[in-house]
């Protein structure tokens, strides 16, 4: 049993098999994304009641919160991939990390933009130096730093290893940055979903929020696999299987 699982992962780590398997997965992932997105948007925009304090404008959380979650998830995921790459030297881990960076940065930007749109009616300003907004902005800087570094280094292997070290340094620093910024200034509302015993968000709002979070997650997996496939084809363009695939 374990042997079969190991064999599967070994095969998956080889570019050729990854290309084939991801090609099979993408349509399914895309379909799940579409279903979750339609359901989540319908429940969130039409079914969920307006908030008793914030009225209709709270509905932006159905985009804001999932994208903020994704921005943090992707950085953590990249850190795991970077560790895998540095330890076992699996090329695919770097391909995935590199393909994730732009997506992570865009989710971070989306979280910032929606937060700013929501902040205007709520706090009366487009931007306030609130702790979580600020740490989200710093997270964007960290993503940008990674992207700038891997793009500046021409040699693919050096870029991969340097980027992996940078991501790991960043992931050690993120909690420190987050808590120091939190301590520095906070205005943001406290966590409402992660309190598992008794969430202070009503079920009619929680369900669409979680559906949207699922949709964003599957969207990420769909797009990151597509990007990774393109990146793989580019890197392996001289290998036998790519030539075969392209019919040359």
């Amino acid at each position, binding site marked *: 049993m374990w042997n079969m699982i190991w064999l599967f992962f070994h095969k998956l780590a080889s570019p050729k098999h990854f290309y084939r398997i991801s090609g099979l997965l993408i349509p399914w992932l895309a379909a799940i994304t579409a279903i979750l997105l339609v359901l989540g948007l319908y429940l969130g925009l039409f079914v969920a009641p307006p908030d008793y304090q914030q009225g209709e404008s709270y509905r932006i959380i159905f985009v804001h919160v999932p994208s903020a979650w994704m921005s943090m998830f992707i950085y953590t995921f990249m850190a795991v991939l970077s560790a895998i790459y540095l330890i076992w030297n699996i090329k695919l881990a770097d391909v995935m990390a590199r393909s994730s960076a732009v997506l992570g940065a865009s989710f971070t930007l989306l979280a910032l933009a929606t937060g700013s749109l929501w902040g205007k009616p709520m706090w009366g300003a487009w931007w306030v130096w609130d702790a979580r907004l600020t740490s989200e902005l*710093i997270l964007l*800087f*960290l993503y*940008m*730093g990674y992207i*700038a*570094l891997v793009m*500046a*280094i021409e040699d693919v*292997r*050096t870029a991969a*290893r*340097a980027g992996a*070290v*940078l991501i*790991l*340094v*960043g992931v*050690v*620093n993120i909690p*420190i*940055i987050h808590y*120091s*910024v939190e*301590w*520095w200034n906070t205005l943001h509302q406290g966590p409402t979903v992660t309190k598992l015993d008794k969430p202070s968000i009503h079920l009619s709002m929680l369900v669409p929020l979680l559906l949207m979070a699922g949709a964003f997650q599957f969207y990420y997996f769909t797009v990151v696999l597509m990007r990774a496939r393109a990146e793989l084809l580019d890197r392996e363009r001289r290998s036998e299987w790519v030539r075969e695939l392209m019919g040359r």
Partner: protein
Amino acid sequence: MSSGWQAFIALVKRDLLLAFRHRGELLNPLLFFMMVVTLFPLGVSPESSLLRTMAPGVIWIAALLAGLFSLESIFRSDFDDGALEQMVLSPHPLSLLVLAKVLAHWLVTGLPMLLMAPLLGMFLSLPAPGLVAMELTLLIGTPLLSLVGSIGVALTVGLRRGGVLLTLLVLPLYIPVLIFSTNAVSVAVAGLPIDGQVYFLLALLALAITLAPFATAAALRISLS
């Protein structure tokens, strides 16, 4: 005395000697530090009450930038003449040698800035308790910045135009130090104890001394490969 320790001392001595032979360059970060601080009263307002509230942030940001720009040179000349490769090949742990280079670098740039800060504090009419807190936070904070910055320098040393990239990589990592240090100075000006902030900075310094040299060593190996 172990051979690693001997190598550590020798490398510190060598770097100090090299710095001493290029005495003219030592002054540059200090002048930069001073000029950036001078720009603020000119650019914002010479009113002393306003300057006093800005002083901790202005001095710290100027120190941070001066440190960062001078840090770029820490591995540069060794990289160019191949001495860095010899260090990587040497039998001593590279992380120890990195620590020696960072220490030498701090002695020639961080320490002079520490001596200059009271003068700049007076420029910005920072009262005496603030000056003491400023010295204390700079004493703990500048080595911390050098250690964290050395990771970024090691990652970018092989690149032709690594300078701007270095600031992009390193500045986000400097934020906690900036927050705690400037807060400590402001709090000290208000006459309150600053133990909490100082302990936090010391904790960060302990973390950086133990972890950063390994990351820098790994990054140097990558840049040289």
